[in-house]
């Protein structure tokens, strides 16, 4: 699987899972559907950008840093909307970015340059 597609898949799956964990927080449970949709969308966009970065920059450490920074930034935007839960949203978000960056660089394939 190429790095961009893998980034989207991993980001999307982790986004769904991350959104589902909101069910354990009773005060936000009524908005669980919006949270899952938002988290999935965030994961897909982050996965796409991390996958694109991983393809352009063939470096594990650079991709990990990019993944953490990007996912933390997206998580910050989500937390800022709520005005609270910065730590609870940003810390797992950063690990999700780390995991997406690692997975795309470690398991994704870079397409061979076309001849001619």
């Amino acid at each position, binding site marked *: 699987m190429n790095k961009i597609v893998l980034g989207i898949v991993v980001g999307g799956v982790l986004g769904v899972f991350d959104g589902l*964990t909101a069910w354990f927080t009773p005060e936000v449970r009524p908005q669980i559907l919006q949270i899952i949709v938002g988290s999935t969308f965030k994961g897909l966009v982050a996965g796409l950008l991390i996958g694109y970065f991983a393809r352009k920059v063939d470096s594990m450490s650079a991709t990990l840093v990019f993944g953490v920074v990007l996912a933390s930034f997206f998580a910050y935007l989500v937390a800022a909307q709520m005005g609270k839960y910065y730590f*609870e949203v940003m*810390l*797992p978000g950063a*690990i999700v970015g780390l*995991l997406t960056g*690692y*997975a795309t660089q*470690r398991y994704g394939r870079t397409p061979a340059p076309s001849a001619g």
Partner: protein
Amino acid sequence: MTLGDAAVSRLRALFAAPDTAGTRYRVVGPLGAGGMATVWEADDTVLARRVALKILDAADATPERIERLLAEARVLASLEHPGIVPVHDAGLLPDGRAFCAMKKVEGESLSAAAARLPSAAARLRVFLRICETVAFAHARGVLHRDLKPSNVMIGPFGEVLVVDWGLAAGAEEAKAGGTVAGTPGYMAPEQARGEPVDARADVFSLGVLLKDLLSADGVRPDRRLAAVVAKATAPDHAARYLDVTALAADVTRALDGEAVSALPEGPFARGARLLRRHRVAVLLVLAYLLVRGFILLFR
């Protein structure tokens, strides 16, 4: 008056030096000696390049040995491969000795270089290059029959060359059997008994060579590679890998952290291997779950 050791050596070398007068080659000095021939460094005066001249020793220049050396040259000429030293010329010198002119290879033998290779993975990659060359020869119907670390050269740029094809035989000749030739310790049991041999005799030698490479740093090889060595060096040729390609495929799988055909694994061993192979991803997932659990429990 008595002659010193150095003087005796010089006289001996002078006596053994081949007569290349009237040929395009000018001998520079000896490079190394084998069982029945000496390899000399020489200048090819026509093409102005250094070559290696393998020349039968004077005392051994019987018609059979002359034919053997020329046969080796023909085998080499039929095997054009980056892992095989190209032969430029062959024939008889004015003194009647057979010679074979080859590219002069820089570098050192694997037996000398193995311990300096940086890791077991680097040694395995060298081994795979040897396998590629031997598999190529087998595909052309040629068995080496004397594979060992001293018959592999490592060039200054990492080139891997399989040398000394003096015992090489075509598949038909090898099937006939009847001759015992090779290096004890590296020879397959059936080859040592003078029985007919096939590609699995070279598989055996490669298995011993692999064992040498794996033990070069004194570290015990992992179970999968130990199983590969055991299968390659099985005393019964029927229990070995069918060919060198199958052996190389198993080594590649071991190098990639995958299961090898030589060591069937159960579900627990498979699970443990997969966990080891993907340990970073597994640790990251665990870290995520721990953080999530921690937040839920202590918020």
